[in-house]
């Protein structure tokens, strides 16, 4: 799923960086150019609006529906869309529209939070490894590789199966946090790899050497030169990952090891009703559509950011 692309993107990214170290010198104009570029692109603005809408839904689901997503009437089970329930009812006789609306929050929280954690932790390790070099780098690199050696799906299944103990009554928040942490745990090594190579490229670039030669303090070098330049590829990978992480969460939930009730999740809705598709498809169709739209929107934003920040394609 998400993993291979990101891996290859990162590889791609590595090359760019090392092949064009001089590009990193133009950091400020790069950022502002990228921003201006993005604001003019429909392929960025349209998905941005979509994501904005879903974020709004995630924060205030009550604005979009009056129905209670948990209220179930078995007598209405699997009834199709109607004026009363736009997306129809699910197996339990719950309002599919309401459940689709309320399903946005967990998806988005888990996706973004997992990316955030993976980026912060992975980025930090990568920057330290790249900056410090030497045995610290070796140590951190081996450590990263150990986690990188766990394939994403396999790793997630093993860890989530191992952790999937409900007894403690962890509640909705706890369930989401477990999934988030596991995804972050499997996601950070990629960020580390990218951050490390970005750091290496910048560190060896001429202007940093020059700044060092002029006697700039290490702190100044790190904050003035290294970080701003190394950040671009990290931001690119983070943006793209949000989409792929949401998709990955849905697959894990579908497999029955990701989110689970009482959390309302699109992946769970798909899993619960995919067997009934020959009877009625709407309980699968609408959550699947919502999921697809959100993921596409995030991937498109990531793609646009990458194009804007990737000097080679400009």
């Amino acid at each position, binding site marked *: 799923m998400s993993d291979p692309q990101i891996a290859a993107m990162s590889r791609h990214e590595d090359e760019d960086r090392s092949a064009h170290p001089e590009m990193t010198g133009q950091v400020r104009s790069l950022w502002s150019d990228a921003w201006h570029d993005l604001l003019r692109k429909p392929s960025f603005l349209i998905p941005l609006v979509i994501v904005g809408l879903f974020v709004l839904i995630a924060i205030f689901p009550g604005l979009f529906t009056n129905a209670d997503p948990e209220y179930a009437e078995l007598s209405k089970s699997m009834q199709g869309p109607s004026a009363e329930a736009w997306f129809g009812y699910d197996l339990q006789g719950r309002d599919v529209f309401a459940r689709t609306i309320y399903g946005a929050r967990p998806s988005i929280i888990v996706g973004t939070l997992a990316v955030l954690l993976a980026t912060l932790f992975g980025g930090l390790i990568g920057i330290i490894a790249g900056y410090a070099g030497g045995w610290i780098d070796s140590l951190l690199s081996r450590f990263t590789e150990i986690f990188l050696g766990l394939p994403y799906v396999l790793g997630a299944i093993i860890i989530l199966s191992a952790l999937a103990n409900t007894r403690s009554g962890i509640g909705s928040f706890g369930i989401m946090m477990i999934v988030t942490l596991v995804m972050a745990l499997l996601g950070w090594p990629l960020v580390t790899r990218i951050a490390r190579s970005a750091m290496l490229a910048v560190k060896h670039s001429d202007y940093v050497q020059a700044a060092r030669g002029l006697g700039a303090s290490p702190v100044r070098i790190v904050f003035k030169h290294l970080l701003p330049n190394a950040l671009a590829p990290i931001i690119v990978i983070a943006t793209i990952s949000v989409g792929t992480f949401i998709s990955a969460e849905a697959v894990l939930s579908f497999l*029955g090891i990701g989110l689970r009730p009482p959390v309302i999740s699109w992946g769970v809705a798909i899993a619960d009703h995919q067997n*009934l598709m020959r009877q009625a498809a709407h309980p699968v169709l609408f959550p699947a559509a919502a999921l697809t739209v959100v993921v596409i929107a995030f991937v498109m934003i990531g793609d646009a950011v990458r194009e804007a920040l990737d000097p080679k394609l400009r």
Partner: protein
Amino acid sequence: MRRSRKISAVALLAGSALVLSACGGGGEAGDDGDSQGGVQGGTVVYGACQPQNPLVPGDTNETCGGRVIDALFVAPMMYDPETAEPVPGVAESIETEDNQTFTVNLKEGWKFHDGEEVTADNFVKAWNYTAYGPNGLQQAYWFEQFEGFEDLQCPDEKCKQEPKAKEMSGLEVVDDHTFTITTTQPFSVLPNKLGYSAFAPLPDSFFEDPKAFGRKPVGNGAFKFVEWNDNQNIKVEKFADYPGTDSHPKPSIDAIDFKMYGDLDAEYQDLLAGNVDYSYQIPTSALAGEQWKADLGERAVSQPQGANQTVTWAAYHEDYSGPGAVEFRKAVSRAIDRQAIADTIFHGARAPSDGWVSPVVEGYKEGGQCGDLCQFDKDAANDLLAESEEKGYTPPKEIPFYYNADGDHKAWSEAMANSINQTLEGDFEVVAKPYPTFAEMRSDITEKKMDGFFRTGWLMDYPHIENFMNPLYKTNASANDAFYSNKELDEKLEAADAASSSEEAIQLYQEAEATLAEDMTSIPVVDYTTNAGYSEKLTNVTVTPFGWLDIYNVQVTG
């Protein structure tokens, strides 16, 4: 994924036991089975799953392996394919005068697949091996009632010391074809039990290398083992020297290919495509909207099965005990819309329960013993709730209902929780909570750690009311998940066990069942229905009350 969830659901539903009943052919007498001029030969492809244990009768406690064991081995008794009544297998007769000492007379001329003759010795040695503690076989507990069973168990937890004896004193070989069984207490239904596969004989070759035997079993049944490809299939073929019985004649088919599926949908699609001849479970996707009946037409089989689904309360927990708790449990029971759940969630694959015993077994009381308490009624339920409050009972704000996520239990568990929440007008909520695996749930249940109520299911080992009572509700019984103890119940059960006639025993067991309504620590929900389908190739198809294909009488055409 889904596939394995379902399988484990089925496989482990009953927990311990399954009854292998492959016995068959009730209606169709005739020495050579195929008296109707049916076609001889052919292979039946049987939808199956990977056995979880070596293929040794005393070590097989789940349906995946049980189905194969059933084709390979015959115990002293067998179960009629249509009625599940006990009929003779290897035994010519089982005689007793006091319901405590039983004489088993074996038929002559039965052979193992390696040519060895089946003698009394084969039974006695096999049973002693199974019961011997240090061997750690899964089905050892079947011999609990045999005299001397205790002496074969490990004296300490880690089994460092050897048990006192290696043979049960209750087993005695009289001659090559006769042996006796003595139980510690009178036990009238013992002959009924002896049809279960744990009582199958083992050839001498087993004792030479039990490990190798488990991968390449040698039985005494109508089919002999050919090969086992893990996770793919197990092949067995007709055993020429199988003598046949009235109910279980020499099979007409040549071979059975137990083809393993990870997913019921995949199996069902292969059934439609003609790649599988018999599936004993239809996936939800096909049950929905009666799709499978349209797909299969006459080849769709739907009949009651000897299994039920109950929910059990952790009545030992302080939150669920004390005055009024019984009324609260009754209120909950009346708040479950069993009919709607059976129709909507199970698409008719279950029927609302009316008691604690499956309707297919001997001893089921017509109309059930649960009465009104198993009838959905909103007002009555709220009246009971009010009554319980008057008596001073306050339920916790959140009442967890636990189910195992690796079985197909989520939908009905949630539906039941919704039904209770929306019926009872109180300040509490039932929340359906999954355990990731059956194993983890069982662990907490047996360790008495539950803090709500939870799903419990029972697939009969043998078709008798006794099997739905003693193991489940007797004080300290092995599967008494509520840790329920009711003196009156225990007395009735003991009396029933010791009853001199079958009728008397059944009467007493039924009285015992009726007492369960007093406390409602276990609430019946739905009874299982076998939903099976077979291919166009099969004729003369009978599906047993266990849900399995009668492999003795089925014929393959075309």
